[in-house]
């Protein structure tokens, strides 16, 4: 075990992935010598050489097309998009290419060796273009896997699993937690399962589900609710596609209540998918409507970021509303 922050855990996972798989390559804007603008790829070029960890020209469309080619050839491509807000020039390569490579060729070709790492979310005074949570654009795309870790130990195990999964994976990193989240991380090579949620805390009155940095908000809200004698069950979804409906449905059948929290805007956010599926699976068990506590249906702001965020207080209010329904 070592104490690491989330960035160090990611760096450690990349180091292990490259050591154990000689065909693994790490590339993107500024990831080479400099080690990335957040330093997630620090020292990888020193250790593995310029042929395996390198800067690309400044073109996300190019990076993903190039990564698809590398993966199609059979090597392991770990591409960094500097901010999730800048993934959109690569949208075509991801949505029309990475996601459909296997299906359209009748499984003759695939880009299963592709992993896209990208920092997402608010909390750094980044405004419109350094704060977005664009996961729902991609959960709407069959063929992709979507993963979001909540802390260093999870980040390492989930990233290793993503890199080794034989499907293209987008790994969204909560940049607000890069240096803020510190925890014990096993030193060895380990993987955490994709597609499986984790019950972080058991409870009996209401289920709260989130992922990534928003886990903090639901944990704080649960503490507030505890003082009112409300017992919350907390679930970290971890994978958004495919997502673990069974674990969530099992919990909701027990508690009869569900609150979904995400940072992205409400309309067509991933919360809508969860709410629809859970009411299908648990209709007769529900004691109150499923509620969503989310970002506003506006671009991500700057001066009024605090007002925008689906914080613990908004979540706590939703818990009370659900309990008093």
């Amino acid at each position, binding site marked *: 075990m070592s104490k690491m922050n989330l960035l160090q855990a990611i760096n450690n996972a990349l180091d292990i992935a490259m050591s154990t798989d000689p065909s693994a390559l790490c590339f993107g804007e500024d990831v080479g010598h400099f080690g990335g603008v957040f330093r997630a790829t620090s020292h990888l070029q020193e250790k593995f050489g310029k042929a395996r960890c390198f800067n690309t020209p400044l073109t996300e469309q190019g990076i993903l097309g190039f990564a698809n080619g590398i993966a199609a050839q059979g090597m392991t491509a770990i591409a960094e998009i500097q901010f999730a807000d800048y993934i959109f*020039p690569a949208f075509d390569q991801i949505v029309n290419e990475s996601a459909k490579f296997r299906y359209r060729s009748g499984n003759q070709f695939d880009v299963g060796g592709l992993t896209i790492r990208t920092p997402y979310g608010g909390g750094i005074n*980044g405004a419109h273009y350094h704060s977005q949570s664009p996961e729902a654009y991609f959960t709407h795309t069959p063929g992709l896997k979507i993963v979001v870790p909540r802390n260093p130990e999870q980040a390492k195990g989930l990233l290793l699993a993503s890199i080794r999964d034989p499907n293209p994976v987008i790994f969204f990193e909560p940049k607000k937690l890069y240096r803020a989240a510190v925890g014990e991380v096993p030193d060895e090579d380990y993987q955490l399962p994709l597609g499986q949620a984790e019950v972080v805390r058991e409870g009996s009155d209401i289920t709260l589900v989130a992922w990534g940095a928003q886990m903090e908000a639901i944990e704080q809200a649960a503490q507030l609710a505890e003082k009112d004698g409300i017992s919350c069950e907390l679930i970290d979804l971890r994978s958004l596609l495919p997502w673990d409906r069974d674990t969530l449905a099992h919990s909701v059948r027990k508690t009869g209540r569900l609150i979904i929290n995400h940072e992205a805007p409400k309309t067509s956010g991933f919360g809508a998918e969860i709410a629809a599926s859970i009411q299908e699976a648990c209709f007769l068990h529900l004691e109150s409507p499923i509620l969503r506590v989310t970002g506003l249906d506006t671009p991500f702001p*700057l*001066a009024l970021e605090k007002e*925008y965020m689906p914080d613990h207080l908004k979540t706590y209010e939703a818990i009370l509303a659900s309990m008093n329904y």
Partner: protein
Amino acid sequence: MSDKRLTDAHIVHDSVFVDASALQIPTLRILQEDGTPYSDAVLPVLDKTLALKIYDTFLFIRALDERMLASQRQGRISFYMTETGEEAADIGSTAALQDDDMIMAQYREQGALAFRGFTPDQFMNQIFSNEQDLGKGRQMPIHYGSRQLHYMTVSSPLGTQLPQATGYAFALKAQQKPNCVICYFGEGAASEGDFHAALNMAGVFKVPVIFFCRNNGYAISTPAHEQYAGDGIAPRGIGYGLKTLRVDGNDVLAVLKATQEARKLAVEQHQPVLIEAMTYRLGAHSSSDDPSGYRNKSEEDTWRAKCPVMRFKKWLIHQDWWTEADDEQRKQQHRDQIMTAMKKAEKVPAPPLRDLFTDVYDQLPWHLQEQQQALIEHIRKYPQAYSKTAGRVDHE
């Protein structure tokens, strides 16, 4: 015949691969380091008033960048970007335009905006994201925009302004306006697909646009030689059918002359132009960056010696249009003015809560009205948690 491809021109009978050696692109320079023009140099159109206005903008920008970087270090603002070392490129080129020509900037062109007359108060209101910011406190510092000054609001995603510039210029031409668009971008952004789309479309549609590349050697940590393998950005203009010119970006007279002539081509002949200004980003990429991780000081010192402000000052002094005493006095005036504006802007409150919701659309649809109402009620319940807006929600 509609097939106009040249398939029969210059036939050879053994393979000849063409490379960069076939294309020697000259660099326009007018002023020597000592501030005197080359003897055969053809000067731009420039009187004392314009020369001093350009130089005064240099001094203002130096003072602004220095002060705001210091303010970032003091924690007064969250973020800043300087254009130190590149002042001749954006200010010299904007000085060649009409005031109502459109500017589409990347983000490191505050000098162009200052030249157009953006006031210290306007700069500060944007940087401090207060309620007087024209952008309503929504974007990070340095994302300026002014409809009045024909300066399109800056957007962080790189390269997006390039094809927009082509479209904007197309619309100017369609409406027979006697104007052009100047579109600034870095040599890094020129790797984006949007760059290629923009130049190709400008060439095909023959629109009045000047693409102005600030080739400052770096895109954050990535040096130009890891950005492209060819001879810079200029040859691409030729490939797309644009008139192309490379200029010493630290020589303001050369930049001014290049852009004056580019404007003529663009406006009078609807001939799109690419200008590549060779310069150097003397400062860090932004206040979040530390260049010591990827380049050495001696390289920076070499370029510091080629300071565009210094070179132009020497010329002004040779002309008897400026003195060292004027210089000291004016620098101090700028510093004082910026300090005063900063202290004022710091005290202006944040934008009101309604500015979170307005302008998503021209009018608030039902779902935003609902979200706004719910948020107001929530803030009333927890005023301590939302101190920027709590005091005022009752007046919304």
